[in-house]
């Protein structure tokens, strides 16, 4: 300490400011710390992606993408085709359910307003925070106890996970539509419903699609609610959504925790496939967002 203070006082006489050198050193030090933390964060992302790619590429191939798992999980070979198909069906059902309701609710929030809209906006933010496994338990209690485990039950659960995300991103996009467009439409004698359907929605459409794609990508990665609803089916390709159904995420989970090397190899290939699909949808959604005039690139926050 004593040694440090000697040159400092000399310097402060030169520069005319007390403690100038220490301030500069602190500044440089904090710059370095913030930069290092930034680099470390990106490095963690790279670590996860490279590790998953490295493990996944060992087994990912035509066989993995075109076959179902072997009956005995300890056996090598086979693939997750049934899970890939199941993921698309279940997430597709979720999108079909959440998209119309979510867009309509967002229209109500932006175009109509009032007390109900205020309450709904607040509860939408709360709904985003409800744990997805709780959503799974809800669908179990409401649907599975009456109709059994099924792809539809999984779709309902994921639809509920997607709903607040769709509402929030659509709401943000509708708010970016200029007021003048609505006024011009009203001035021409269009009704409120007509204005919304033929002016407001088309103007915001690509932003809305971006939001739905991001919600779709997030739903596709969900596992917890599906454990309680779709349950999984590791044996054969199931196309009937009223039957229990496997998804990519369920198969990764099921195979990863077996302890068999062969099953874990399949799970790594599945993890790489899932990450690739999710990133594909995420990047495509951003690309669409960046090409549009209304709200270009706005839907990027991971408020999921």
């Amino acid at each position, binding site marked *: 300490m004593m040694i440090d203070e000697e040159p400092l006082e000399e310097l402060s006489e030169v520069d005319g400011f007390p403690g100038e050198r220490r301030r500069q050193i602190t500044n440089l030090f904090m710059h370095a710390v913030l930069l290092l933390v930034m680099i470390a964060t990106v490095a963690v992302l790279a670590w*996860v992606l490279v590790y998953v790619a490295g493990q996944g590429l060992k087994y990912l191939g035509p066989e993995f993408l075109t076959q179902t798992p072997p009956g005995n999980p300890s056996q090598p070979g086979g693939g997750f085709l049934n899970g890939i198909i199941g993921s698309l069906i279940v997430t597709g059902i979720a999108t079909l359910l959440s998209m119309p309701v979510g867009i309509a609710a967002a229209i109500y929030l932006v175009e109509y307003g009032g007390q109900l809209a205020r309450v709904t906006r607040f509860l939408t933010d709360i709904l985003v925070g409800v744990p997805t496994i709780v959503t799974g338990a*809800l669908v179990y209690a409401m649907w599975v106890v009456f109709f059994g485990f099924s792809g539809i039950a999984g779709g309902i659960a994921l639809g509920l996970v997607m709903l607040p995300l769709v509402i929030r991103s659509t709401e943000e996009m509708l708010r970016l539509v200029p007021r003048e467009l609505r006024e011009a439409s009203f001035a021409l004698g269009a009704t409120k419903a007509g204005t919304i359907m033929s002016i407001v929605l088309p103007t915001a459409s690509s932003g809305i699609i971006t939001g739905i794609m991001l919600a779709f990508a997030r739903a596709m990665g969900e596992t*917890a609610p599906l454990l309680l609803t779709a349950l999984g089916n590791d044996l054969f390709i199931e196309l009937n959504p009223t039957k229990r159904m496997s998804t990519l995420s369920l198969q990764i989970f099921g195979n990863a925790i077996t302890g068999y090397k062969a099953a874990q190899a399949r799970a790594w290939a599945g993890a790489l496939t899932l990450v690739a699909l999710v990133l594909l949808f995420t990047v495509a959604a951003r690309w669409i967002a960046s090409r549009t005039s209304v709200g270009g690139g706005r839907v990027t926050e991971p408020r999921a």
Partner: protein
Amino acid sequence: MTAEVQAPPDTSERPSDGEFTDGLFARLMAAAALTVIAVLVATAVFLLIRAWPALSHYGPLSFFHARWAPSEAAATSSTPNPYGILQFIYGTVVTSLVAMVIAVPVAIAVALYITNLSPAVLRRPLSSLVDLLAAIPSVVYGFWGVFALIPALGPIGRGLTSVSGIPVIGWLFQGPFFGYSVFAAGVVLAIMVLPIVTAICREVFDTAPVAEKEGALAFGATKWEMLRLAVLPRSRSGIVGAAILGLGRAFGETIAVTMLIGNNVLTIPHGIMRAGSTMPSVIANEFTEANQPFHLDSLFVVAFGLLLLSLLVNIIGKRIVGRVSEHIA
């Protein structure tokens, strides 16, 4: 009924038809908005209905102990209650706190760097990269955690367990450390909640007035002093809100935690280096195999408790962040 369908006398070119669809359209949109409220109410009601048999059989207060032993449940006797849930509440809160202790400082640093220090061309790419952390599915984080993170944490974990002499810290880090632990789950949770905490911090830092930042620089402040004097002080409540919302997200995280925490349901683990369990992890592990008396009902008690806990945290976090953004606007 008839009064509603009858169109009012109208002389315009498109009578009644437009008016009618307009009203119907508004009602449809309102119904969609009501769905959100209905979903939340239904969640609470259905979970409570399914939890009720266990709650009324054992009594709500009897769940507050730390031993979960379904195999000891009997259909007839109600004491002692074999379904203690305190260790799950403890595990949920402590894993999430470990995550926030790691994630919040990192998020502040990353958000400060992106908003104020990075070259302008790198701002969007860096934001996108951090956001990508949120796109990776939970099950992938769990799998990666088991095979890549736990081995990497080994030396750190064993190093931490060696500081056994100090009173509180010694208890917190007491060994042995075998990998699967509250600590490992907390580290993965930190990575998973980092994007949302960073995103909110970024938004908060972006609202610091440019005039004040330039003022600080004009008075000769260094960049760091500018951040410390003009950006951080007015961001304090925003950071707290971001941390609480991140905490709410961490509370509900299921699969990655289930794969890493070790799933010890019999007791509250001593410290954070040993195996534990959380409310979501016990539901994920036992739900489809619950075959003991009141087993499934008790899991619904856990789910209902988790719902209440996450609602509480999210409402508080939302209040703080909402107030901040109103204050800014």
